[in-house]
């Protein structure tokens, strides 16, 4: 019931209501496609082979221990014993094999998970608890890949039911079970009474405290905030910066700041086609963008400007703010030098009859209002040096359409884009900036929106991937990051925002992987 100022004692049982601002998934199985909303909810019922602490250390989870061969091509995983999925199917090596094959099957239409296990050639079920991964090439990021929700392990019997059924209610080993999905309304998760595989973020032994989680979708930020304040829901995600600020002052609302790992939030410039195929034009754009005042005003101090391709939570992150100093005169000079010297009646630069226009599709489902406002400010700032930016707010599927490459097109239909793709660890750099990333995954998604095709960068990333020496790896990634930054293909903004506001509940923690919240320890206090 709403209201009730006094902080009551946490108690067992009850129903927690979670309100998500993300788009409602069309499939609850994070293997299919693989976006953040799926990771969010699947954290409650699916668990990965390995876990990861906030400082980046890989820990056991469904796999107790693992060993890698010297050539880095064979990995042996020992699974926990006696674990069963909630449908009673035992968790064994065969199940792991089925899951990896499921991810790699083009019919599954996986994007994130598919990229994560791209180097796994085959999984061999040595015996019930031993799964051997054969790799096509060394992959130092394999553990990070397997720690993510998008590669979490599901019941093979569940997968065998076929895509439609599995999408409606995937079966895992997690603390909750998908009970009912009423599309557009809510997803009901009930407690898994036999839960016994807590991850690294909890000390709990046994089932969760809550009886039930009701997962709702409230797309409107103001409504979501109102629902939290009025006590209809206990947890909301994607709060507005002003809501975070007022939550920090309110005593009954807790704020969880859990930036996503891997990549930073950035604007990517499409280097594959004019005008951003010219580095001078890219630099001009970045020199003129001047996002800092906007970030301050819009985010009210809840975020920090980043100058790195990696999130601040990544220990290997490397930043260089000297490359991003705002300099309008320099931007003008660069554009002049690049041949964009004429201006049309609107003051937009021209070259050979072509306007200096930038199409910037914005996914409204993946970006809060403050971010869209920031894009508008950048639009206004670069306008001063002669860029004509068209911001097009789009629904998720239309947005995929806008950045995709359909048959018969002569070029891509975007020049700039901000995509929320991320994954655990610096390996994200390889997904996002390796020229392999221009090739679409089976789902049609391709991650390298900047379309960087730099052989030297590719080499650095490949080498880092193959190396198991942490220091060498860190050094290689540092070099790679410097190359990426110097290419002016991306404009880093800030960590990928991942805030939660909670009210009337304690014990909400976030995973060290993709910072999704888990309610295994949560108890209601109202």
């Amino acid at each position, binding site marked *: 019931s*709403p*209201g009730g100022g006094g902080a009551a004692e946490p108690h067992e049982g009850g129903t927690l209501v979670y*309100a998500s601002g993300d788009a409602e998934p*069309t*499939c609850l199985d994070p293997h299919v496609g693989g976006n953040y909303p799926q990771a969010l909810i699947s954290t409650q019922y699916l668990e990965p082979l390995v876990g990861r602490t906030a400082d980046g250390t890989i820990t056991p989870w469904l796999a107790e221990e693992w060993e890698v061969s010297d050539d880095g091509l064979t990995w042996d995983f020992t699974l926990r014993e006696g674990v069963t999925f909630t449908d009673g199917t035992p968790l064994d090596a065969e199940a792991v094999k089925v899951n990896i094959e499921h991810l790699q099957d083009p*019919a599954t*239409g996986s994007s994130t998970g598919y990229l994560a296990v791209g180097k796994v050639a085959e999984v061999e079920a040595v015996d019930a608890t031993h799964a051997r991964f054969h790799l096509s090439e060394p992959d130092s990021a394999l553990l990070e890949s397997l720690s993510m929700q998008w590669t979490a392990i599901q019941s093979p019997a569940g997968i065998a039911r076929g*895509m*439609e059924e599995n*999408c409606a209610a995937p079966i895992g080993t997690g603390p909750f079970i998908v009970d009912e999905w*009423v*599309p*557009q*309304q*809510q997803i009901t998760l009930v407690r898994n009474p036999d839960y016994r595989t807590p991850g690294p973020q909890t000390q709990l032994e046994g089932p969760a405290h809550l009886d039930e989680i009701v997962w*709702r*979708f*409230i*797309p*409107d930020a*103001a*409504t*979501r*905030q*109102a*629902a939290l*304040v*009025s*006590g*209809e*829901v206990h947890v909301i995600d994607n709060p507005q910066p002003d809501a975070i600020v007022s939550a920090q002052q309110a005593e009954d609302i807790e704020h969880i700041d859990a930036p996503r790992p891997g990549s930073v939030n950035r604007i990517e410039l499409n280097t594959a086609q004019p005008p951003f195929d010219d580095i001078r034009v890219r630099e001009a754009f970045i020199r003129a963008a001047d996002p800092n005042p906007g970030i301050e005003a819009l985010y009210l101090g809840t975020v920090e400007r980043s100058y790195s391709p990696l999130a601040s939570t990544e220990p290997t992150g490397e930043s260089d703010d000297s490359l991003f100093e705002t300099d309008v005169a320099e931007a003008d000079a660069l554009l002049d030098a690049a041949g964009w010297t004429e201006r049309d009646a609107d003051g937009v630069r021209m070259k050979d009859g072509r306007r200096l226009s930038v199409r910037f599709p914005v996914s409204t489902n993946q970006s809060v209002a403050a971010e869209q406002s920031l894009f508008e400010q950048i639009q206004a700032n670069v306008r001063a040096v002669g860029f004509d930016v068209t911001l097009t707010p789009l*629904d*998720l*599927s*239309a*947005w*995929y*359409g*806008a950045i*995709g490459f*359909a048959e018969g097109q002569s070029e891509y239909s975007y020049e700039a884009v901000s995509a929320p793709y991320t994954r655990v660890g610096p390996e994200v750099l390889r997904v996002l900036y390796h020229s392999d990333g221009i090739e*679409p995954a089976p*789902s*049609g998604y391709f991650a390298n929106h900047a379309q960087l095709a730099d052989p030297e960068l590719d080499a650095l990333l490949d080498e880092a991937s193959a190396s198991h020496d942490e220091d060498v790896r860190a050094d290689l990634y540092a070099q790679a990051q410097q190359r990426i930054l110097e290419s002016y293909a991306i404009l880093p903004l800030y960590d990928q925002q991942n805030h939660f506001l909670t009210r009337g509940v304690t014990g909400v923690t976030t995973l060290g992987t993709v910072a999704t919240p888990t309610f295994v320890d949560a108890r209601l206090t109202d």
Partner: protein
Amino acid sequence: MPASRTDAGAALRRAPGWLRWLAGRVGGALLVVWVVATVVFFALRASGDPLEAILGGPGSQASPEAVAHARAEYGLDQPLLVQYALQLWRIATLQLGDSYARRQPVVELIAAQLPATLLLATLALLLAWALALVGATIAAVSRGRAGRAAVAALRGLELVATVTPQFWLGAVLILVFASSLRILPATSSGADPAGLVLPVVTLAIPIAGFLAQVSRDALVDADRAPFATTARSRGAGEPRVLLHHTLRHASLPALSLSGWAFGNLLSGAVIVESLFARPGLGRLLLDGALGRDVPLVIGAVVVVAVLYVIVVTAVDAAELVVDPRLRAPRRSVAARGTPPRTPELAVGS
């Protein structure tokens, strides 16, 4: 064929009045569906590759199997006329196809969402009626300078109500009642009474404005009508005149506008349902339109059209109950001005 049609026509002309009336209604419903199907069919062909639209816009990256399946299902390899016939046949037999985004039959999706919207719309319509009649009553009983001022204020309020964007109104209501006063929930997931309050109010207010205008005019007319003076001359007091005489007259135009109002409510449901995170047909339709889920949208539109016909039919029946003049023979029908089917000057609903 022409012969059989004449036979049918003649048979229909001989049929009792209510049967003819019903036949007209069903015919209307079929026509609605036919027009919708035709519009969609040609719009889809005009907009580019219908396959792409059927399979979910340019971003869908549908698998070759899905493409082949859809091609066969919609007969896209057939001549245009066959495709058209196929589309009509599919809709006539309620084969609305599968939503590409939700991987479920459209019929099931709509059936699941319909009750929530119907509940919302019905409550809103009732509230709008009530508000309209209260407003009209205030206008009719107001006397003197203060009364005139009250009526003027009421008229202004009605006018503003009719043009206030619902999404704005709803946002303000959420701010006041959910965020600040915390007395009502901002969202509603189903039929919980408290959660329904704000969405219903948001939905009802613009229509209440329209209905209040027509009811007020009708009530003022009725109040000035000789029969009201006659009732007073029999010793009836104001409450009695209102309850037994004039209010019934005032409710007639509001009743006959209900079909239009219902359409307007469905428009409003699109906004209100997404604002208050309510499940329902409106939100389904919006998601469908945003995601270019064409089978889903067609299905929703067909359902809305059929609903509209049902509602108009029900309203006609209700009017027969309330207004005996409509039942009486012709001579007296002429005595009654035809009530407005739409508020004079509303272009859409």
